[in-house]
C-alpha cells in the first residue's frame, strides 16, 4: 500500500517536473489573456469561467481578438472549433495510451488536455506506461495554473502595460518551438515541419486565422504520407 502511494507520489512529481516549464510559460499568456479580456469588458468572473470551461489558450486568445459588442457568438464558437479541431487528432492519438485508465476519469482528464501536457504525455507514453497519478495530476495542476493566472491577469493586467514590451507574447511561440523540437528526431519529421510551416503561413496570408492551423496540419500529414517508406514502421 505504501509502495503504491510512494509510486503514485513519484509519478505525480515526475509530471510536475516535466510540466514546470510549460506552467511558467503559460503564466504570462494567461496574464495576457486576462488583461486583454478585461480591456474588452469581460468581468473577472467571466474570464476565470472561460479559462476553466474552455481551457484552450490559442482559442481563447483568438476569441478575445474577435470579441466585439454585440458579442459575435457564432463566429467565436466556429473559430474555437477550428483552432481546437487539432484536439480530435491529438486525443485520438493519445487515447490508446491511456485506455487502461478509468473511463470516467478520462472523461474529465481529456477536458484538461492542452498542447503542452498532451505533448508530454505522448513523449512519456513512448518510453513507459502512463499512470493516473502522472496524467491526471499533471492535468489538474495545469488547469489550476491556467485559471488562476487568467484571473490574476484581470487584476494585474491594467498595471503591467503593454505585454509586448516584455516579450511575453513570444513565450507562447518559444514553448511551441521547444515542443516541436522534441518531436523532430528524424529527417522525415523535419520535412513534416517544413511543409506545415509553409502551408500554414500561406493560408494565414491568403485566408487568415484560424484556417492556417488546418492547412498546416493537413500539409504536414500529406508530407508524412508522401515521404513514408516501408522500413520506417517495419
Amino acid at each position: 500500500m505504501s509502495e503504491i502511494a510512494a509510486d503514485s507520489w513519484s509519478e505525480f512529481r515526475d509530471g510536475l517536473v516535466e510540466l514546470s516549464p510549460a506552467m511558467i510559460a503559460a503564466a504570462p499568456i494567461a496574464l495576457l489573456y486576462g488583461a486583454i479580456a478585461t480591456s474588452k469588458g469581460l468581468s473577472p468572473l467571466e474570464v476565470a469561467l472561460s479559462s476553466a470551461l474552455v481551457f484552450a489558450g490559442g482559442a481563447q486568445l483568438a476569441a478575445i481578438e474577435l470579441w466585439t459588442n454585440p458579442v459575435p457568438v457564432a463566429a467565436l464558437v466556429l473559430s474555437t472549433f477550428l483552432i481546437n479541431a487539432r484536439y480530435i487528432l491529438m486525443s485520438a492519438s493519445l487515447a490508446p495510451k491511456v485506455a487502461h485508465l478509468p473511463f470516467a476519469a478520462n472523461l474529465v482528464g481529456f477536458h484538461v488536455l492542452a498542447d503542452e501536457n498532451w505533448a508530454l504525455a505522448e513523449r512519456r507514453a513512448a518510453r513507459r506506461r502512463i499512470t493516473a497519478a502522472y496524467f491526471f495530476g499533471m492535468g489538474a495542476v495545469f488547469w489550476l495554473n491556467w485559471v488562476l493566472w487568467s484571473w490574476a491577469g484581470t487584476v494585474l493586467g491594467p498595471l503591467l502595460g503593454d505585454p509586448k514590451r516584455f516579450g511575453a507574447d513570444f513565450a507562447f511561440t518559444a514553448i511551441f518551438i521547444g515542443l516541436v523540437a522534441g518531436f523532430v528526431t528524424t529527417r522525415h519529421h523535419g520535412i513534416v515541419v517544413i511543409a506545415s510551416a509553409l502551408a500554414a503561413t500561406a493560408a494565414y496570408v491568403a485566408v487568415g486565422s484560424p484556417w492556417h492551423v488546418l492547412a498546416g496540419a493537413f500539409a504536414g500529414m500529406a508530407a508524412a504520407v508522401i515521404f513514408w517508406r516501408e522500413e520506417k514502421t517495419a
Partner: protein
Amino acid sequence: MSIDPVTLAAILGMALATYACRFGGLMIGGRLAPTGRTKAAVDAIPPAVLTAVIAPTLLATGWPETLAGALTILAATRLPLIGVIGVGVASIVALRFLAGG
C-alpha cells in the same frame, strides 16, 4: 462580479466546441490501430499542428520575429524547454528594440 447572458452563451458555446473535439478524439482513438502510411499521417499530426499554430508569427509578422524564431530554434536543439523560452523572450525584446518598436 457579474455574468452577462450573451457572454455566458459565448463561453458555453466555446467550451462545448472544445470539449467535443477532446471527447471525439477519445472516442475515435480507442478503436483505431493505424499502421503504415496511416500511422505516418497520424504520427505527423503533433509536430504539424504545433508548427502551424506559430508559423505565421515566425514567417509573416516582421524580421524581429523571424530572427528571434531562428535563434529560438537554434536554442531548442541544445537547451531544455525553460532555456528555449529564455532565449526566445530575450531575443524578441532585444530585436524589437533594435527595430525601433
